[in-house]
């Protein structure tokens, strides 16, 4: 859904204001239908084209194409989105209903067969075309991941999907919890998309960044890792294999586990602020720069102070991970990784 955020913010800032067309509402005759279409096109050109391109082709990677927008959204959903805006996309709340109806129709009645298997002799090629128009904005042009969508060429789901049914399920139903929208494609179209993604996943893709498999991270020695954990590594000063790390290998695996092991990004720091009058406030560190300190108290309420007016102390256990960086050998890391992978 992020793809719509940027819609037309430019149009707003360069001072376009929705215009009122003094045309009465009536049943659509053929000529009025044509008029409505042209009004929709006009409205699109005025409000949307500056970001989404004259031909709805989008301007990747910044601006999503709208060519196949009706595959993800009903006409009502399109209208709601245009009316209310979302994220950085501004609301076009004052668009007259008639113009809105025309605009939505214009957006939703694109030639949906263009570029699909209907118009192409090669199914995977058709899938490529469909992918570029509908999926590339989030998942990258080569399906190897973009800013907001994961790398599909390394997706377990894709790699384990022999007949396309798993991909179909995700595409048809979306993954709302991960902001992946549902798409309305024909069976042939889904199949062509699946073939394209599989092709990307199995062919040797030139140039792109590669990944790390769980099997790559099995070179360490469990006993040596355990020894390091309890000994020179100093891990046991803060962690316990039967306490906070019990079952860690069930929660994380592979690269993710290794990254957590080396530096747990989401670790929290505690801060105690002593106010001018001597009372103290304690909570989780929420913000810190040279000038301001912010915390969340036990109730989750945010407080902040200029650092010049208070004193504060921070308890940041994660700093021990930073100090460890210069002490590790690569072997230590591999051994430690082997040991942590036994904590299931």
């Amino acid at each position, binding site marked *: 859904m992020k793809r719509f955020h*940027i819609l037309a*913010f*430019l149009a707003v*800032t360069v001072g376009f204001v929705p215009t009122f067309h003094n045309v009465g509402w009536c049943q659509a005759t053929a000529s009025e239908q044509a008029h409505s279409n042209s009004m929709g096109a006009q409205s699109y050109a005025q409000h949307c084209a500056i970001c989404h*391109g004259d031909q709805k*082709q*989008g*301007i*990747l*990677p*910044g*601006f999503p194409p709208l060519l196949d927008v009706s595959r993800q959204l009903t006409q009502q959903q399109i209208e709601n989105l245009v009316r209310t805006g979302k994220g*950085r996309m501004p609301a076009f709340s004052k668009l007259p209903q008639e113009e809105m109806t025309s605009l939505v129709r214009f957006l939703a009645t694109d030639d949906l067969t263009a570029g699909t298997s209907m118009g192409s002799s090669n199914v995977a090629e058709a899938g490529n075309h469909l992918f570029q128009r509908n999926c590339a904005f989030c998942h990258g042009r080569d399906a190897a991941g973009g800013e907001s969508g994961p790398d599909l060429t390394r997706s377990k789901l894709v790699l384990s999907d022999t007949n396309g049914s798993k991909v179909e399920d995700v595409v048809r139903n979306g993954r709302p919890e991960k902001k992946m929208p549902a798409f309305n494609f024909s069976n042939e179209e889904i199949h062509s998309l699946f073939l394209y993604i599989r092709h990307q996943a199995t062919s*040797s893709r*030139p*140039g*792109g*960044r*590669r*990944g*790390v498999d769980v099997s*790559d*991270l*099995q*070179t*360490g020695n469990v006993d040596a890792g355990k020894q390091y954990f309890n000994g020179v590594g100093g891990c046991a000063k803060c962690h316990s294999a039967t306490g906070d790390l019990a079952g860690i290998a069930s929660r994380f695996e592979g*690269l993710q586990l*290794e*990254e957590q092991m*080396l*530096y747990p990004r989401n670790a929290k720091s505690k801060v105690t602020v002593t106010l001018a009058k001597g009372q103290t406030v304690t909570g989780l560190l929420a913000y810190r*720069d*040279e*000038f301001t300190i912010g915390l969340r108290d036990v109730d989750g309420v945010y407080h902040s102070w200029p650092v010049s007016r208070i004193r504060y102390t921070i308890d940041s256990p994660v700093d021990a*991970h*930073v100090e460890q*960086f*210069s002490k*590790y050998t*690569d072997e230590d*890391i*591999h051994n430690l990784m082997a040991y942590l992978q036994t904590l299931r």
Partner: protein
Amino acid sequence: MKFWKHALAFATTALFSGFCHFLIAQNHQPANTTQRSPENWPTYHGDYSGRRHSQLTQITPQNVAYLTLAWAFQTNQTAAIKSTPLLVDGILYFTVPDNIWAVDALSGHMLWHYNKPTSDGDHIGQRGVAINKGWLYFLTPNCHLISLNAKDGTVRWDVTVCDVKKGYWTTMAPLAVGNHVIVGVGGDMDNLAGYLRSVDSETGAEQWQWDSTPPTGTPNSTTGGMTWMTGTYDPELNLLYWGTGNPTPVLSGKTRPGDNLYTCSIVALDLDTGKLVWGYSVSPHDTHDWDAVETPVLVDGDFHGQPRKMLMQASRNGYFFVLDRTNGKNLLTTQFGPVNWSLGVDKDGHPIPNPAKEPAPDGRLIAPDEGGLTNFRAPSFDPKTGLFIVNAHPSYSIYFAKPADGYYGWAGADYGLWGKGVIEAIDYQTGKLRWTHEVGQGGSGAGVLTTDSGLTFTGDAHGNVLALDTSNGKTLWHAGMGAPMFSSPSTYELDGRQYLMTSSGGVLFAWALPETGYKLVSTH
């Protein structure tokens, strides 16, 4: 000299008072030497030396606390401003990918906007335009060099300088010297040879091309050595100094034995012919994506008791270099933060890469990370203190590569673990840090500007613009800009008022001392 410049400016301004103040300077020739008029900022680095040091002294350590917003300009773009605005004849020219703006430097209002959306080529950033005799030079993500009329943004000519379909792109601010426009290219997702090209400033015709590496497909040889950052120029020696990018394949060195010249190098090229005069490898056989494109800063001065024409670079690989720029001989190599990938330096000051720290199937812990100990954000050299001030990024990461990753393009994977931002003041005679100033977890993308009054301007990781005391690194002023800075600050003077120029997100900020009431406050 300065008095007469001011007097002339004042007299002419008075003549045209109420009219466009910048018309008076139509005959101004943009700086073609390292000596520019300190009021202007006519090249990406301000002048050809890359020092990013201004002689303007109106804003001082004593009054900087009163610095206030003169105006802000909103581009309404999601792309962050990474360019340094040029300031010529009262007009600022700056960019984001596919866009140029001309803005009145006095008021911040827009004069014109050029926008031509492109969908191919990497839109990773745009670092600004060059100007020569009223013509601007602008590079697009899809490899076009466009010359526009600085008056109204109309296009004079448009030439192609690389092949976007092969995987090249362009992001840099070209360097205009005489009738040359020097352009570099980017592109390390494919095994492509980097090059630097000189284009005729009037016609756009190619004058020469220098290739960083042998052509793609040469056995046992490297490709890469992209030239994506603006270099520097010494008019006396008539030499261009340019940093080159990483070799390709990026994370695997198997197919490219040896030092991989001239990737990750500093090269000196003859301006008129493009011929290599000398080259210095900063990261022999790099396998960590540490482009050596950071500004090659040109400084004339004493080195260990001898007058020298020097070139200094704080490089992405974690090493600070001082070279004799007449011949490329090494004077100093030191580390300016955690570095764990080398076995030390050889007799000529080149770091010796440790084979055990090349990316491996089960991972190698590497300092610094891929972003490096510093990067495209510009450093500054302060002549009074002899300090080379750089925004450093102590950091750790893990690097992977296995045969299955192949030998094309990236050829591996790497993941940053942790990093922070530190402004470091390096004594160029010793490489020792005279002071450090932490700017936050994660690190900051802000460059550095120093001024003759003893001020250092930069930004922190959170979006604050900072004014530091150059002598000790203490904060003297700050202001929150709402988003971190990914550009390098600059300064100019207009109608007797000094402006500090910064950006964050898509907004440009001009800071100055208050026009009224300031004296009242300061003498209070």
